[in-house]
């Protein structure tokens, strides 16, 4: 009997906590549909007294939100694709192939793991500026596509794959490249997907780098676009939060679609690969 009451209390608390947590996200959507007068009144209103779906097109008219979203996808997908592919290749060599200098080279990769991105921010900016890469896609993408974390994570995963699998393929006449593509990559899909999802969501969220590199609509991402929106349109709350909704919803959808790997990635990093 008491366990039943306790169980009901637990479920009730779960609902309550979840509801409170979602309030900001729900309010973002609700205010986005309020009228100009209602959203900017001195006393904010919570539930819209009338719904204004035309706010969506109005927000798109004020700033090219579609272009910003597309730019964000370019930026996030570009860095993710480059990092995942190059990291998988390098991680395989570090995990499986013997070559002189392997341990000190890997040591250099490891040494940069702890360095915060702000340390490389200024030299990267200077480099991109000297190469005339400001406001270009290579300038946006390349500096953020070669971090050590991808190599490190995938190497850990590859080390856990039994060597026998590859040896069997090699006895069948496969060379290293074929063994990598046919044996290792298929086995490592979960690890690669986890890395890709994390990188993609992280870069979708990246504000600082696009803020310093992008200075026109050509490469402006959603994060920076929203900041510009705030600067130029002040607190036109309904349109500001409509723009926020438009740029957040794709990421939330992506999160729900990929949460298996997302959650796996968090727990993997937290429990030392368990």
């Amino acid at each position: 009997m008491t366990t039943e009451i306790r169980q009901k209390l637990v479920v009730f608390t779960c609902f309550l906590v979840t509801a409170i947590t979602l309030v900001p996200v729900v309010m973002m959507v609700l205010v986005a549909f309020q009228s100009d007068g209602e959203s900017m009144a001195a006393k904010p209103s919570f539930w819209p007294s009338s719904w204004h779906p035309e706010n969506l097109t109005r927000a798109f008219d004020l700033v090219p939100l579609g272009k910003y979203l597309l730019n964000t996808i370019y930026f996030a997908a570009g860095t993710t694709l480059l990092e995942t592919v190059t990291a998988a290749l390098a991680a395989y060599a570090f995990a499986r192939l013997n070559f002189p200098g392997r341990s000190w080279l890997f040591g250099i990769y490891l040494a940069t793991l702890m360095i915060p991105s702000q340390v490389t921010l200024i030299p990267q900016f200077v480099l991109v500026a000297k190469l005339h890469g400001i406001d270009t896609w290579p300038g946006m993408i390349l500096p953020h596509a070669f971090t050590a974390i991808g190599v490190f994570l995938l190497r850990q995963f590859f080390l856990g794959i039994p060597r026998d699998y590859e040896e069997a393929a090699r006895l069948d006449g496969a060379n290293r490249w074929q063994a990598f593509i046919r044996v290792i990559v298929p086995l490592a899909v979960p690890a690669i997907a986890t890395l890709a999802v994390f990188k993609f969501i992280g870069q979708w969220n990246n504000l600082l780098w696009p803020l310093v590199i992008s200075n026109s609509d050509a490469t402006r991402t959603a994060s920076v676009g929203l900041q510009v929106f705030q600067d130029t349109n002040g607190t036109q709350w309904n349109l500001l939060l409509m723009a926020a909704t438009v740029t957040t919803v794709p990421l939330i959808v992506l999160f729900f679609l990929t949460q298996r790997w997302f959650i796996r990635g968090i727990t993997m990093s937290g429990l030392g690969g368990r």
Partner: protein
Amino acid sequence: MAISTADTAPVTTAPAPATQAPPPRWRSREALTAWLFILPSLIGFLIFTAGPVVAAGVISLLNWNLFSAPTWAGLHNFARLGPDPTFWSALGSTAYFTLVSVPLTILVSLLLALLLNQGVKRIAVFRSLLLLPYATITVAVAFVWIWLYIPHDGLVNAVLGWFGINGPAWLISDNWAMPALILMSVWKSFGFGMVVFLAGLQAIPQQLYEAGRVDGTSPWNSFRHITLPMLSPALFFVIVTSVIGSFQVFDQALIMTNGGPGTRTTTLVMYIYRTGFENYDQGYAAAQSLVLFAFIVLITAGQFLFQRRLVHYDN
């Protein structure tokens, strides 16, 4: 570390690795294959990650505004930090943010993980919904939080009003702007720790609790003597990563307060950004970024020393 023989030709001088040495010709082919695998990553890594780390050290020794030729400054940029009040206030703000937001985030994460671990049905649904803030765009949700914090009749103050509390002006208040940023940041990031802790809790063998129950252990004691030690590696991991993340807080401070009122919420990273990209004082900004790095290294090293006593690793 710095001693490197960069000869790519794998001659016999290379000491044989721990594994049994394959025939020399095969080995040299293997080395060639390895370099081909590594090269795409290595070129990018050297140019865009390792190179810039070294360059940061060099730039920190220069007077440079990007437009004119740099001049040598020696350690002047580091010496400038001492008498710079904005630097010290930025350091103070960052420390304040970290010292409050990390324990709060950990506490919320842990409580929610414990709650979800009480045999709740549809645990995955709650877990996903509670993780949602972690997967939103910081800039976008920062806008909503500005709206929530509207003085007088904003949602936060309206709720406080139900309890007879006259809420402050939050983001424009000298004393409450930082707590407002902290609350938002806890909301944004608690999901990460929650997921780690939940996985950690689920990995604790049930027999331990059953043994405790047989011995008549109270729930609090079984939490203290079973749950907490078993969870300590996960706790340690989340604390270390949270501290590193908090030291780099930027997005929400830029959007919600722009570092104000005054410099109350100007964090270290925001000060680096302003120095480098608003004052174009690249040398000074690089010096600041290295100091930030030094702080992170020191604090993390301190935590690792501390963990030996507190973290229980079960093999």
